[in-house]
């Protein structure tokens, strides 16, 4: 009975894995880097002039001047607080690209304002490095260039396949769990070895994968699910439910001079959450009947609701507390549950240690999908019999091997190349984002073509060399900046930026070692394998 189901689920696991595995590899590899999005952005951004911070008490005058000159800024702007000096701040806002949807961060242009010596407002364009956002988009929409509605649906389909692959993998493993779990059988049987490793990593990181699969499905389909539930469950009352916690619209029209100074708003926030250090104020629709300002802070001991941390919503004119559902110190159990769901995906809890844990789990996840495909190839291996002519593997095995190598290692190499270019592009090109995208997709599709055109075995070696070189260039350009040999290059002797450089150094060494091992396997490994020399030479005639 059970063997019948196990056979069914084996088929389910194979197909879902094969269909979604490569997209998931990109999502997890890029996701591992997205854990450190902010340090990567700081590492990649050119030094900004320090004098651009203004005293906190000067910000009301600055806000009024900017709102007079640019009324549309009132829709959304930020008072960014200096991370070290609590009395210094910066006024910032963004201008969305034409036809951009709310998730499209990439096309936004960023601005800031400061005061000149005479007290007049000066507007400056800000250029935060777009490379980390590009990697985040790769993560969110499984390697596609833009976070649009249709791409999110596609990501949702991949997430569904991923969830089914997880459950089916578990069903296959369960009957022999006690026997197989801690078994690791290196030896002649390559497939056994890969299977043991795949099972062990998969089962140990299963809780992480369940969390990621469930939240990813929610992120992909929440708009659709809300619409459906509004019809069948809420009887069209969804909008009313969401508005229930908010104050009634206030028809009184107010002048910008009545805006409370940011310092006063911060004092009111201190009453709500005395232990927290605020990081920014986010003003929303201050000319509408429902003006709001969110005060953001990171709670080091709680599950923070968003990547920016936790927040309380205040009235920007009266200072009244409008909402504390997303502030751990004040929220009720229902919102604690909701915020935990987000936090478990965005790893906005547990500080730096937990971020490194997620980084490791995400890389292990990418490895899991890669080995899944290797197992597919290995299971279909045609063994060489004694006294028989040399054995070539069938074309479909060669194809899957070439695709796996091209897509997975191509995305790894592409991300490293586009990251390494971050310190060289400013000053060379006008459109930084476009340059980063061209570099990533150029390397990605070039790698894919290379692995297919050449053969999976040698293709993998070459792509690993490329990845090793490009990854080494990440700390390399920082080093050149530190030595001052190239004008315009920069480096930051700060923990988070050095962390980026050091991690890249370790990764480059890893890619280098893998390339060398693969090279050896081609010449010394068994010839009746897609990774052996014979198959590499016979690939083209074969496929």
């Amino acid at each position, binding site marked *: 009975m059970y063997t019948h189901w196990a056979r069914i689920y084996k088929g389910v696991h194979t197909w879902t894995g094969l269909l979604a595995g490569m997209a998931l590899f990109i999502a997890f590899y890029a996701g591992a880097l997205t854990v450190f999005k902010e340090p990567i952005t700081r590492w990649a951004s050119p030094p900004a002039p320090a004098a651009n911070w203004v005293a906190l008490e000067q910000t009301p005058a600055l806000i009024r001047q900017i709102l007079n000159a640019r009324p549309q800024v009132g829709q959304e702007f930020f008072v960014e607080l200096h991370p070290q000096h609590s009395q210094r701040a910066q006024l910032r806002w963004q201008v969305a690209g034409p036809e951009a949807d709310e998730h499209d961060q990439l096309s936004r242009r960023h601005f800031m304002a400061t005061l000149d010596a005479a007290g007049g407002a000066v507007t400056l364009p800000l250029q935060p490095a777009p490379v980390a956002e590009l990697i985040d988009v790769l993560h969110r929409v499984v390697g596609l260039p833009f976070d649009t509605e249709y791409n999110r649906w596609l990501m949702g389909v991949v997430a569904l396949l991923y*969830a089914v692959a997880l459950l089916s993998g578990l069903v296959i493993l369960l009957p022999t769990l006690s026997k197989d779990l801690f078994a690791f059988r290196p030896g002649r049987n390559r497939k056994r070895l890969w299977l043991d490793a795949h099972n062990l990593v998969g089962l140990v990181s299963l809780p992480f994968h369940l969390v990621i699969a469930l939240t990813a499905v929610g992120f992909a389909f929440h708009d659709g699910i809300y619409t459906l539930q509004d019809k069948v469950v809420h009887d069209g009352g969804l909008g009313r439910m969401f508005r229930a916690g908010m104050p009634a619209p206030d028809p009184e029209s107010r002048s910008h001079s009545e805006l409370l100074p940011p310092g006063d708003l911060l004092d009111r926030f201190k009453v709500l959450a005395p232990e927290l250090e605020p990081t920014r104020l986010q003003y929303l629709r201050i000319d509408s009947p429902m003006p709001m300002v969110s005060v953001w802070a990171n709670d080091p001991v709680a599950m923070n609701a968003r990547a920016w941390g936790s927040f309380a919503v205040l009235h920007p004119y009266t200072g009244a507390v409008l909402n504390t559902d997303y502030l751990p110190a004040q929220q009720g159990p229902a919102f604690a549950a909701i915020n935990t769901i987000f936090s478990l995906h965005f790893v906005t809890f547990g500080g730096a240690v937990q971020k490194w844990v997620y980084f490791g789990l995400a890389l292990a996840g990418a490895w899991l999908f890669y080995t899944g495909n290797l197992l597919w190839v290995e299971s279909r291996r045609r063994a060489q019999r004694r006294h028989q002519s040399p054995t070539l593997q069938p074309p479909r095995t060669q194809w899957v091997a070439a695709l796996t190598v091209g897509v997975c290692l191509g995305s790894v190499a592409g991300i490293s190349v586009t990251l390494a270019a971050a310190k060289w592009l400013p000053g060379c090109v006008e459109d930084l984002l476009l340059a980063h995208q061209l570099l990533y997709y150029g390397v990605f599709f070039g790698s894919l073509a290379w692995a297919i055109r050449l053969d999976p075995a040698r293709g993998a070696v070459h792509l690993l060399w490329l990845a090793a070189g490009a990854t080494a260039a990440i700390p390399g350009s920082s080093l050149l900046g530190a030595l001052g040999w190239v004008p315009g290059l920069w480096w930051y002797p700060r923990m988070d930026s050095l962390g980026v450089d050091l991690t890249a150094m370790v990764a480059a060494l890893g890619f280098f070692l893998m390339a060398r091992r693969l090279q050896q396997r081609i010449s010394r490994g068994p010839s009746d394998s897609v990774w052996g020399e014979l198959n590499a030479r016979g690939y083209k005639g074969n496929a």
Partner: protein
Amino acid sequence: MSKARTLKAQTPAAGWLGKALAGLLLGLGLGCSALFIALTPEMAGAARAQLAMWLVPPVWLTVLGVSFLFRSGPRAWLVLGGLNLLVLLQAALVPR
């Protein structure tokens, strides 16, 4: 013929599309039930709506995952469809 023998005669892939579609569509239907809403009359609206949405993925994916355990596609539609009817009935009868 015994039950085990019937199963053995089938290929593992038999009826996979019917089972998968049943899990996909009817699993979503079960996930979108009004059960949670009926059980939480005291909860504030914004939290209730969000939790009701977040409870869909676990139910949906569990049903999708186990739908391959059904003996055939039509049977999966029958059982999961019946459960969906019960849930719809609950939504119609229980005040919320």
